[in-house]
């Protein structure tokens, strides 16, 4: 009987548990996590902050998930260290967990840059439920928030705070919001939709100092010397892989824990998945951390299969986000803003509400941005994932109603009708 252990209790852990149980009903599975909560949907912390959902409704799997899957869940207890020779995890409360196969799914932790004045009260991050609860509690006494970081997390946080009736200013170092996944044009559309709602966005600038008196925040000073009055700051710049546990261990770390296509690390029987793992990107030809929910599930699943000895492999990470801000839906997939001339780019836009961009490399679709009419955008994702040659119908890709009907008949019959 195999002893499986998983450190971490989010989506990668669930992917692994479901994979393991699809093959192995007998082995024991132990989950260890420092967060005390039943597995929850982390992206929903913005809905929680907006007052649109409850902790109960955030459950990512039913209340009997651990029980039904025969999982011993040790929650609210952090792992303190791992002895890779003895295959044993030491927990902070003195317990230990033995394993035959170990999955490191420790996720990411908010990246906090060296800003002057971090010792003030009412400085928040925004990656977990506890963060959302603290922010929720602060809203009553705070009128003006500054959110540092105009990426996905920062903007969703800003939207939720705005919905709660407080004034929000977003400060982003890059020349536009969501710079990691969008191009200039799509970024501008998002900025305008925020501006229409009264959320100020400052780009090309950053917070150098948090100002205050007696521990309380009075404002922030930007690199441009401009000062913004506020009583609270949310640091939402991004997440860094949580690799503490494998520091000075034989587990090889690049930016994250390096994994092969079976999610195996440099140490036998030790796997990693999710925001902590640095795996192969399907388009970039490099390893990278791809801290997005679907990627974490798929990696967790691939790891789980490998841990049972029935490896199926991981198809490779694909950057993909769907975000809706104030009613403007937006999807990005793959490489969206290449600077290299070997890519071919086609775009179509209508005002501030519609934008569609496709990126081709060697006749194959490698990236897309769709703003507004996002229905059926998944067909583009499928073409990207499968490396389909689109050169004969590339102009059609820009139509909002682009569909399988635009594919050559033989390609369509294979993809759609299994013929």
């Amino acid at each position, binding site marked *: 009987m195999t002893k499986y252990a998983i450190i971490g209790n989010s989506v990668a852990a669930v*992917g692994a548990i479901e994979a393991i149980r699809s093959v192995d009903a007998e082995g024991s599975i132990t989950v260890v996590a420092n967060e005390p909560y039943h597995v929850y*949907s982390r*992206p*929903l912390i913005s*809905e929680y902050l907006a007052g*649109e*959902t409850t902790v109960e*409704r*955030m*459950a*990512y*799997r039913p209340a009997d998930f651990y029980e039904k899957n025969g999982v011993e869940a040790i929650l609210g207890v952090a792992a303190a260290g791992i002895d890779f020779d003895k295959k044993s995890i030491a927990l902070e409360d003195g317990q230990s967990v033995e394993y035959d196969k170990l999955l490191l799914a420790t996720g990411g932790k908010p990246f906090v840059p060296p800003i002057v004045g971090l010792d003030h009260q009412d400085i928040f991050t925004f990656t977990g439920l506890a963060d959302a609860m603290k922010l929720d509690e602060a809203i009553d006494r705070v009128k003006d928030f500054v959110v540092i970081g105009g990426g996905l997390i920062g903007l969703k946080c800003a939207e939720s705070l705005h919905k709660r009736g407080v004034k929000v200013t977003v400060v982003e170092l890059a020349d536009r919001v969501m710079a990691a996944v969008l191009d200039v044009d799509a970024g501008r559309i998002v900025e305008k939709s925020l501006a229409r709602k009264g959320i100020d966005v400052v780009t090309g600038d950053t917070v150098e100092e948090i100002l205050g008196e007696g521990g309380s925040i009075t404002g922030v000073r930007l690199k441009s010397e401009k000062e913004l009055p506020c009583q609270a700051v949310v640091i939402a710049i991004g997440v860094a892989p949580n690799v503490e546990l494998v520091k000075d261990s034989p587990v090889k770390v690049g930016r994250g824990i390096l994994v092969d296509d079976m999610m195996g690390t440099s140490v036998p029987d030790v796997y990693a998945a999710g925001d902590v793992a640095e795996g192969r990107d399907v388009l970039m030809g490099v390893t990278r951390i791809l801290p997005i*929910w*679907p990627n974490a*599930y*798929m990696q967790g*699943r691939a790891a789980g299969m490998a841990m049972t000895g029935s490896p199926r492999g991981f198809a490779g990470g694909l950057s*993909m*986000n*769907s*975000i*809706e801000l104030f009613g403007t*839906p937006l*999807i990005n*997939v793959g490489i969206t803003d290449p600077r290299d001339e070997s890519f071919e780019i086609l775009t179509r836009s209508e005002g501030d509400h519609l934008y569609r961009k496709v990126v081709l490399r060697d006749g194959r679709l490698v990236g897309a941005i769709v703003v507004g009419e*996002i*229905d*059926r*955008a*998944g*067909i583009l*994702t*499928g*073409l990207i*994932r*499968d490396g389909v040659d689109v050169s004969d119908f590339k102009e059609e890709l820009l139509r909002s109603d682009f*569909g*399988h*009907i*635009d594919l050559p008949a033989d390609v369509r019959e294979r*993809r*759609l*009708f*299994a*013929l």
Partner: protein
Amino acid sequence: MKRIYAIESVCMNCQLCAVFCATGHSRSKDIIKAHNREKVLPRLFVEEKRPVSFAVQCRHCDEPFCVQSCITGALTKSLEGPVVYAEEKCVGCWTCVAACPYGAIRRDVDRKKIAKCDLCAELTEPACVANCPNQALVYEERGS
């Protein structure tokens, strides 16, 4: 498992599959009320570029990207095969819309929910298949 496939050579783009799908998923089960009052959306897409047309429904994939991408747990893969959708858990994030290679998931923007084929679980044959006047939809086992 059995899946719904279109036979594009005999599809006439009459859209009756969409009509019967929406009606079958309405509370009233009445064609007029389903469309005008309840505003039920069909759980399928009919694509047309003359002379070709066909309907596309959820493929209930063996390794469903929608399920693996769903951020709330609203989409799950059942042991019996179908991809099951729990509407009350959906928050309308549209990640499944971005992920589905078939483009088979519809946004119900007003309700902030998705609409997706459930194979008419309570019927012996899906309504779209049963009501296609030209038998341009079949419900059968194929490779995938």
